């Protein structure tokens, strides 16, 4: 069938696509929203509005963008990366026209929201960055493509190239990869924090200057309207969760940084003894970090409240919000009909949407348990932390944080048979003071 293929495609394209998708898949970012590039007459597509996931891989991750590498040749030798120089794997490079045609044809069939282009380092950072910018420029200018473009900022790339990239891309990202400078230098001798943070700063400056320009001239072209993001690999180096979260919190303080992604370390280079030997990627830890990240971005938690010196790692057994609540029983129970919105957000089992529903509805009358349940509040958790119209249930005050934890982490099969109102006496060997005074 390949003899009928059109344009820039040829029989190698399929092979290249497989190789370069394999190489790109460990980057977890997939966001495609938060931009305002609308369709213009004669152009292709639009990127206005929310991001859309067009498919999901069999590991359950969203496929929103054509996530691909321009090339997987690389002069660096980072221990955690599948494309490192010393790996013997098939290498390939796309031509600009192949990549452009793939993007547009996939886009027209509603397979994707746009392109997420990354690259191995060839020759030097600037040479690589220039080629990435070239693809985006071709799409935007020659083909008048208005879909989403996410470009990777290459650590060490010059300010001019980053600024040019910002004119064509919706989002730029520079990956921190390893959350600590010493660990980074150990695993990736060619990189340091300065080479990562400099392009991040250029992007920030570009966006902020552009905002000023747009105040003066409404028609000034936008600079990376969807901001920037970054990624950290979790579990490849010895950092604790508190270090990771405080780095994230610091990054979020900078304007324009929209997302930090956490990628559980997949041991792709098992032979390298600088890396820990893992049976499987730390998926639960990764999930807990995302939950903690959510708490910082949408639930008004600070990094310190989630993990500090006393609790340097996230609890793998319960989610970070429940863990916080169990460490702070003095803040509960919360009265659903009176509490501030900020406090409702801190109740385990109440999300942002349900907290908003509660605040909107309680003006019409006091809310009771059945109404809360119908609104989608997870009563199984929330019940230990709230009071509502009905007589109070046994809350975390009457029970004990340890007991609430035991009830909530029990395997789901046995949870039904036990009545949580029934006091359960512990006949274990463990003395009570050790059990309770944690």
């Amino acid at each position, binding site marked *: *069938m*390949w003899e*009928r*293929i*059109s344009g820039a*495609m040829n029989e190698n*394209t*399929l092979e290249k*696509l*497989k190789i370069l*998708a*394999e190489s790109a*898949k*460990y980057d977890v970012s997939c966001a495609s929203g938060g931009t305002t590039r*609308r*369709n213009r*007459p*004669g*152009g*292709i*597509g*639009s990127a*206005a509005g929310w991001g*859309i*996931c*067009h*498919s*999901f*891989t*069999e*590991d*359950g*991750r*969203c*496929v929103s963008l*054509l*996530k691909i590498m321009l090339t997987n040749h690389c002069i660096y030798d980072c221990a955690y990366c599948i494309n490192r120089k010393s790996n013997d794997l098939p290498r390939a490079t796309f031509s600009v026209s192949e990549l452009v045609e*793939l993007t547009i*044809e*996939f886009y*027209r*069939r*509603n*397979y994707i929201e746009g392109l997420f282009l990354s690259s191995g380092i060839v020759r030097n950072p600037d040479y690589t960055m220039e080629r990435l910018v070239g693809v985006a420029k071709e799409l935007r200018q020659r083909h008048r493509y208005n879909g989403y473009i996410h470009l990777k900022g290459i650590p060490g790339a010059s300010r001019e190239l980053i600024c040019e990239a910002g004119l064509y891309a919706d989002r730029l990202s520079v990956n921190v990869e390893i959350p600590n400078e010493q660990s980074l230098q150990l695993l990736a001798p060619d990189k340091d924090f300065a080479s990562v943070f400099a392009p991040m700063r250029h992007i920030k400056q570009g966006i902020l200057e552009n905002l000023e320009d747009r105040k003066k001239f409404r028609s000034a072209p936008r600079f990376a309207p969807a901001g920037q993001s970054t990624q950290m690999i979790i579990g490849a180096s010895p950092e604790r969760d508190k270090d990771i979260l405080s780095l994230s919190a610091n990054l979020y303080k900078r304007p324009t940084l929209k997302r930090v992604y956490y990628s*559980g370390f*997949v041991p792709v280079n098992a032979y390298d003894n600088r890396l820990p030997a893992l049976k*499987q*990627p730390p*998926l639960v830890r990764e999930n807990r970090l995302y939950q903690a990240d959510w708490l910082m971005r949408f639930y008004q938690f600070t990094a310190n409240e989630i993990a500090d010196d006393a609790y340097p790692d996230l609890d793998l057994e319960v989610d970070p919000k429940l863990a916080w609540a169990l460490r702070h029983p003095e803040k509960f129970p919360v009265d659903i009909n009176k509490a501030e919105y900020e406090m409702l957000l801190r109740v385990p089992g109440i999300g942002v949407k349900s907290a908003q*529903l509660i605040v*909107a*509805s*309680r*003006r*019409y*009358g006091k*809310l009771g348990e059945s*109404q809360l349940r*119908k*609104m989608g509040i997870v009563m199984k958790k929330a019940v230990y932390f709230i009071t509502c119209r009905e007589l109070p249930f046994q809350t975390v005050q009457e029970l004990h944080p340890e007991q609430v934890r035991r009830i909530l982490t029990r395997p789901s099969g046995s949870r039904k048979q036990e009545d949580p109102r029934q006091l359960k006496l512990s006949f274990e060997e463990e003395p009570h003071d050790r059990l309770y005074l944690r």
Partner: protein
Amino acid sequence: MIVCTYDKTFEGLLSVVFEAYSRKKFPDKLLAEGEPLPLFYDEAISVSTDPEKSERVWNGLEKKLSRGGLAFLTQSWLSELPEVDLLLFRYIRKNLDAPVSLELNFGDPDVLEVSQIWKKVGQEKSRIIQFARFQKTADNTYLAVLEPLYNVLPLTLSYFKERFAGQCWLLYDNKRKYGYYYDMKRVSEVRFEQEPLWGVCGKLPEELLAEDEKQFQQLWKSYFKSLAIRERLNPKLHRQHLPARFWKYLTEKQGG
């Protein structure tokens, strides 16, 4: 029990509201014309749709409800759930009778249920936008065949029109047997007298496809396959995000 029969259109429902207020008799059951009446009832009223009356009720609602509240009504109607009309009737009545807008009172079971149906229909709309797959035909029309759970195609048109403004496309609801065709100027509703060529499986015979269509399908399928990380396979999560009822029409879930 008061039973009311009408033509099961949204305008019809608004006329029912009008009649109910003018007769001061509020139905407990809404039936389609010709549907058998229940065994016991006090009164059966037949309402014929009158655009003027419907318009007056709608204008009244516009004064009471915000734009979001009005969208609650129209979008929930598209769910086509049994008895959704009676629920909407109660919702309209509550809002018309209340001195202040009730639309944020989610403590009220009817308001909450309408909002939940609204949400479900909205989710289905997003899924159609996510999972529609166009196949390019020999005459350069892009065809997507779908079976939405609710009648949501009308809600997705603005998205497809904006995004695919530069290509002719046909979106077809294979369950409800109608679709929308865009000719690069406007969108129009289409129905076919005969069974369309793509049949129940939504696939056109190969000779009707554009020359390069099969290749791009192949490229997309292998791209999709390469993207999964073996160490992290999670079929349950996969099915949760990508419900099996869509697989039939998804290019990447076809074998070969």
